[in-house]
């Protein structure tokens, strides 16, 4: 059995990075964190901006004659107008419905015929479409992707069944899953006044009202070359890709000026806030606590990196404080961990969570977990812990380099959430430079406020008696 809590530790880092091959050949005798500090990620990466404003990024990786081609748009669910929740994701589905040049299915058929993979995804801050194909087919991919950036065509006969698909998707993801339901309540409570509180897939009643006109309004406002980043990773160079990009994406008109991405800002409001969900389908109680924290885009220098390390040290694996103290030592929990996503345009959240062992009151686990956080805020972490965390996060970056599509995703995410190529490249140096004082300061500044609470409970849950010496 893969123990996710252990194996995922390095790999769910919000920023997965990789090191350039030439430098790797000189990897030091012992992979010590300081040795990685001056490594620059992807020195071969090239970027150009076309006349119409589209940013092109090429990440050479010549191990196999394969390319990953991704078109990223700087728009996500947090950019939706009030009442139109779900339109970013709905449009993403509708982008597969054909253009004035290529009827529905033509692009997908061509990809299938050459044995390619394709898909798309929507986040709060970005939307992306990608194909992975043998490198010979890159010009075809760029032609079709550019085509749907400018020439989407939709009929009600296509839009209405797709809306049903999305309602099924919502039912499958949220309706079937009490944890996802609680997450919707929790996020809505956390992000007061900010659209991160709205689920990416949208609220059910608002999805039901979305239509063709809404999709086009969103498309016309945001799907313009000056709002797009095209990332090509694989067996290619900028010299090869640029002429193709100019022939395809370069011919597109700048259709709109989306402007600065300023959303209503999240409010820190007083008072105890708790979301509790009891559901027949919950087997065991669990708890989560959350705080508002800065993302890479909004943080002061070094703060997001400190929070990344803090999250790892608190709850990032089998040697983390939560796992060691709550699961191994006191055995009050069967699982415990923490979560921080730094790749957002606006203020994000830092979460901790735990599932109590059978017969242990939630209250007790919660108090212990908060005591662990308070201890770090007061006393910082040990040098050994910090060193281990740095080393693991930096090594995860080397492992990540083993997969071409991962790097494409790292750069696409960063470039659509306010970062630059250079900022991604120097991430190892920033991680290596974080001090114990910075970790302590981050914990003090952000995790000593009253957190929000979420409880997922079985139906008719009753808190067990606190353990005495009853036996």
């Amino acid at each position, binding site marked *: 059995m893969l123990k996710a809590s252990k194996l995922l530790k390095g790999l769910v880092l919000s920023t997965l990075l990789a090191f350039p091959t030439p430098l790797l050949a000189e990897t030091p005798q012992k992979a010590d964190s300081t040795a990685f500090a001056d490594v620059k990620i992807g020195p071969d990466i090239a970027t150009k901006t076309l006349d119409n404003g589209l940013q092109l990024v090429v990440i050479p990786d010549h191990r*196999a004659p*394969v390319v990953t081609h991704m078109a990223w748009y700087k728009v996500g669910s947090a950019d939706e107008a009030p009442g139109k929740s779900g339109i970013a994701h709905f449009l993403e589905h509708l982008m597969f419905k054909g253009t004035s040049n290529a009827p529905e299915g033509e692009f997908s058929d061509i990809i299938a015929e050459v044995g390619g993979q394709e898909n798309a995804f929507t986040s709060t801050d970005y939307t992306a479409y990608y194909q*992975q194909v043998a490198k010979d087919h890159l010009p075809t991919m760029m032609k079709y992707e550019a085509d749907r950036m400018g020439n989407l065509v939709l009929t009600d006969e296509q839009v209405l069944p797709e809306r049903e698909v999305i309602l099924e998707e919502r039912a499958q993801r949220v309706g079937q899953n009490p944890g996802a339901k609680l997450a919707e309540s929790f996020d809505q409570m956390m992000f007061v006044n900010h659209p991160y509180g709205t689920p990416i897939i949208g609220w059910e009643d608002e999805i039901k009202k979305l239509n063709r006109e809404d999709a086009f309004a969103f498309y016309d406002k945001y799907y313009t070359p000056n709002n797009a980043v095209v990332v090509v990773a694989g067996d290619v160079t900028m010299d090869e890709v640029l002429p193709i990009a100019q022939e395809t994406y370069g011919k597109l008109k700048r259709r709109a000026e989306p402007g600065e991405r300023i959303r209503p800002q999240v409010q820190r409001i007083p008072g105890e806030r708790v979301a509790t969900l009891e559901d027949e389908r919950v*087997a065991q109680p669990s708890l989560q606590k959350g705080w508002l924290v800065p993302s890479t885009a909004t943080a002061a220098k070094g703060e997001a990196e400190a929070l990344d390390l803090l999250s790892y040290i608190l709850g990032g694996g089998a040697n983390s404080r939560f796992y060691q103290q709550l699961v191994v030592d006191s055995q009050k929990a*069967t699982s415990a961990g923490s979560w921080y996503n730094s790749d957002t345009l606006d203020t994000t959240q830092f979460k901790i969570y735990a599932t109590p062992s059978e017969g242990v009151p939630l209250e007790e686990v919660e108090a212990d977990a908060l005591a662990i956080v308070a201890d770090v805020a007061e006393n910082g972490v040990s040098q050994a812990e910090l060193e281990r965390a740095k080393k693991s996060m930096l090594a995860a970056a080397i492992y990540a380099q083993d997969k071409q599509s991962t790097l494409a995703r790292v750069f696409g995410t960063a470039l659509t959430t306010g970062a630059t190529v250079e900022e991604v490249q120097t991430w190892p140096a920033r991680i290596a430079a974080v001090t114990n004082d910075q970790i302590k300061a981050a914990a003090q500044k952000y995790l000593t406020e009253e957190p929000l609470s979420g409880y997922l409970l079985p139906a008719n849950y009753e808190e067990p008696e606190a353990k005495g010496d009853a036996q």
Partner: protein
Amino acid sequence: MTKAGLLVSRSVALVSGGLMLMLSVVSAQAIEIQRVVSDQGIEAWLVEDYSVPIVAMEYSFQGGTTQDADDKLGATNLLSTMLDEGAGELDSQAFQLKLEELTMSLGFNAGRDRFYGSMRTLQVNLPEALEMLTLAVNEPRFDEAPLERMRAQVISGLKREEKRPQSIAGRKFSALLYPDSQYGRPSKGTVESVEKLQASDLKAQRDKLFARDGLKVGVVGAIDAETLKKALDQVFAKLPEKTQLTEVKNVLPLEGKSERVDFDTPQTTIQFALPGLKRDDPQYIPAFVMNHILGGGSFSSWLYQEVREKRGLAYSVGSYLVPLEHTALLMGSTSTRADNADEVLKVIEEQMVKMGEEGPTAEELEKAKAYLTGSYALNFDSSGAIARQLLGIQNAGLGIDYINKRNDLIDDVTLEAVREVARDLFAGQEPSIMVVGPQTAPKQ
């Protein structure tokens, strides 16, 4: 807790495909596989590659959860959680700390027919990483404290599964299809059976499965053949020569059975199954191509088109072949709003009947072949993926030249062969069906 915040547009199937042929492999870039045999006679397949300074190893032993004794259900799965929880002189905490310090990972997984292991390490730490792997394979401690911890985690997982429609469906469906076989039993055991397992049971299960005769190994990365030979002897040579497997009888899944479980969720989960083909069946490749057209992993499959694209009845739908050591299935799954369940089932059955009676068109076959041969290279996108393929090919007994032959095998499939296998699989057959969902009045 999963990382929130990404919705992927198109989910083709809820459950990933069967064992082998999802791994269609490269020929274009001429992956060079070396057959490495150690001094002690242990064989591994190696792809040497220094472009990323890591080493990925995948290995498996013969015998998986079907080897659990009837009164020790879940033993193999619990064993898979305990091998990195202390070994040799290192107790659980010391072992985990060392893994982290070496920035390496060990993984273990109990399959139904085989027990899988994996290792990832940076090249610079290879000697120490191999020491850790050697300890885990040869000297696991099964100490009481970590055993209780892992038991609690497994039981906690089992309890969660009891509340998850897909898991309920999977578990009940296995029992329905295989009432008298090891394949019908829950592979992770039950809460009651796992509660009773002892360290001695895990040790016995390890002794039964971990042997050299069933061992297969695939390695990719920054390591040469000589180093690998020594590594193989270091890790595996101390194991006994022969496994002590319990016989598992060849068995056919029952047909035409159906069961529904009332479960209060907004969606109904549907699974269906028919007897399939084992991996060594001469008709396996035509069946694989046929299934791709019916409900395999692309957006043009019949099921995807009919259920999702034309009718908007479901977000995900698909079918897949499940070739096992002693049985085989053709399975499929979807989930849909409860009042659509009957319609979805009808549409799916119509497609299966159509496949059995008419089969695909020549054009559909050509497209499927183009997809399956063209997607070849894409499954080679990381060292770990390549190592898994090296292992999968060995587990299926396909031969070291399989990678070069595989696309020709697909290209050679004729329309007649596809129609024939479709007829054999579907004509006059009644699928078994498992439905988990809320009770509803039928439409109209």
